[in-house]
């Protein structure tokens, strides 16, 4: 009975909008539907975020909250050795991680999507195969690959030596020049299925007439891809780029499994997630809560800000397509 009465009310108060007939229900009805999601969201997302912000403005001695510290924790993070250096080094590694992933994982993902789209044979099987590594936790993936790459017992170097490529049998994860690229490759190995699926879906949504029209106009295969397919993939590229950005700047599990909490060797794979982990949990000084909260806030603000900018940029690009 209650529901029936509620349903009749908005009809009376229906608002006519410019284009079509749209009934805007009363705010109380809207609130009832929004409330459960809002409560869950507040309790598990907004509250922790706000409390990290709150913690970052106080001085801490262990778990005891001392006086208001203003921006001291932020200043410490940017000026106390070695965090002042590690913060920028970690940031640069995250940026490299992102660029490397865009170049390798997402480009290869697009290539796979195009090949599967054009030659449909075994599509189902290959799509499933490329996405299987999703099912494994990054920690496990990292551990397995570090076993494979182990310089003493690992099969990869044994294989290289067996085929006479001794000079290629490097300590992959123990060399400051190769460690980060290896981590980026392993990450791409795990997630390449994601851009592939996104691009496959977007390709399927492009009407075949466009390509036919391009061919009639005498466009080569490349021109057809460059001038027709790629622009129409903009929405998918936007989503993939932003999600890659968020994932890469929050990277932790895989790097931790392959390079430990210090970003071995010699910090050459150190990323912001590891720095946070060390400041918050490993080094455990009495200042830990304040400083790690400050770092968490900085990371959130940066990732959130860039994601917003990137999303609005891609929106504008999309609008130009229409």
């Amino acid at each position: 009975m209650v529901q029936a009465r509620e349903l009749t009310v908005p009809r009376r108060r229906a608002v006519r909008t410019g284009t079509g007939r749209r009934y805007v229900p009363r705010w109380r009805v809207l609130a009832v539907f929004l409330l459960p999601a809002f409560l869950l969201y507040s309790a598990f997302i907004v509250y922790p975020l706000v409390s990290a912000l709150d913690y970052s403005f106080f001085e801490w001695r262990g778990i005891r909250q001392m006086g208001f510290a203003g921006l001291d924790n932020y200043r410490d993070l940017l000026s106390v050795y070695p965090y002042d250096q590690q913060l920028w080094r970690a940031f640069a590694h995250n940026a490299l991680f992102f660029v490397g992933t865009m170049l390798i994982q997402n480009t290869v993902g697009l290539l796979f999507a195009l090949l599967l789209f054009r030659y449909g044979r075994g599509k189902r099987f290959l799509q499933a195969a490329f996405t299987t590594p999703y099912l494994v936790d990054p920690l496990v993936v990292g551990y397995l690959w570090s076993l494979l790459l182990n310089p003493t017992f690992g099969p990869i170097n044994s294989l290289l030596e067996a085929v006479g490529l001794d000079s290629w049998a490097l300590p992959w994860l123990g060399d400051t020049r190769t460690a980060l690229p290896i981590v980026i490759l392993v990450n791409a190995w795990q997630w390449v299925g994601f851009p592939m699926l996104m691009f496959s879906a977007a390709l399927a949504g492009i009407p075949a007439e466009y390509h036919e029209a391009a061919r009639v106009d005498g466009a080569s295969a490349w021109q057809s891809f460059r001038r027709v397919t790629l622009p129409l993939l903009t929405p998918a590229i936007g989503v993939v780029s932003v999600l890659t950005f968020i994932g890469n700047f929050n990277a932790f599990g895989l790097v931790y499994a392959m390079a430990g909490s210090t970003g071995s060797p010699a910090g050459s794979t150190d990323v912001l997630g590891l720095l946070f982990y060390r400041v918050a949990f490993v080094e455990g000084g009495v200042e830990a809560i304040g400083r790690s909260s400050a770092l968490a806030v900085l990371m959130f603000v940066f990732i959130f800000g860039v994601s917003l900018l990137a999303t609005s940029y891609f929106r504008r690009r999309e609008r130009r397509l229409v």
Partner: protein
Amino acid sequence: MKRRWIAGAIGVLAVALAACAPGGGASDQGDKSGADKVTISLWSWRVEDVKAYEKILAKFEESHPKIHVEFKPFQATEYNNILATGLSGSAGPDVAQLRAYGGLQPLVEADQLLPLDDKVDALSGFDAKLLEGAKGHTDGKIYGVPFAYQTLQVLYNKKLFSDNGIQPPATWDDMIAAAKKLKAAGITPFAVAAGPDATWTLPIVHEIFGNARYGSTAFRDALVKGEKKFTDPDFTASIKLIKDLEPYFPKDVVAVKIPDVQALFVTGKAAMYPTGTFDLAPVLKADPNLEVGLFQVPPPSGSPVTTPVTPGWADGSFGVNAKSAHQAEALELVKWMATPEFGQLYATELKQLSAVPGVTPSDPLLAEMAKNYADNGAPYTLLVNFRYGQPNGDAVFRDEVQKMLTGQTDPEAVAASVQKGVEQWFKPGN
């Protein structure tokens, strides 16, 4: 209709609340069964030691029939947070296993522990080096009864030594000659790892080879008073020893992990394993027939301390919650933990070095470690004195030493970085 719904909701809520109540029901029943028996809780990070503690605590209950101790272990990695939270509320433990040195400090600063100086008389008989680990950094009060300690030394494979005609070295040069000989025979001389999981062992390797070279306790005291710095030539020279020994470590040492070197040592592919007491049990578990000996590293020429030393540190202690409702009973328990009865049980059941004075381990290797520490004990300086602030001393040290092993920095720069990191919070004079 409506009423039934409410009744149902209340029922669900009641069940949920009952499930959340942390074992309250069980311990209440325990109280009632033994007339006026008091149940106290003991928190620990040793999930793997439940059986041993049950045996040990049964002995305590024999002599203290009015007290029942409930042993509650938590995951070691989560323990610090759980304990800090527990101690700040009303559902905390009566007695808790406490971390040592810098790990103890946050609890001390929050006034969560009972000072034990004038409450547990037996503490005056404990080794002063080990009591340091249970003291507040600024107030100097003792907050726990130390339970165990670790010593650092080189374990060696007796069979590999005799096969290659090598004796435990009497001088540094003997040790280098032995390493050369082993390397020529295709054996890794020192099982040292510096890979992703092993950076924390680098300060340990440094202590084992370099403690006497930097001047051991005297240098540490001078550091703490502010009379010396980490940039001192002796400390720099002690770091250089690691670089000098690198040719005798496994190839590509910065990619080598701890399980790798344990496997090398256990399978007889590496002859010497510079490590702590904590690795003895895992090594012997992997191969119970392995003949293991141990030696203290003889100091190189130019060392301020010319006799070999055994660096070590207190593992932790047992302290009393300042808010405990059963403080008298909790004190009874920690007092008993300072007796040789507890020490002997602890050493036997857990195969660790007990901190209680006068307890000798039955295992000959552990007994040798204990004797070495009693005779030539030295502080693991970076852990014992430089973990009271961020960045802590050994965090900077391990990163920089790993960098040195990849050829990106040198011993002078490592020492300078440690000094630079530590002096941001360290105030000399304590």
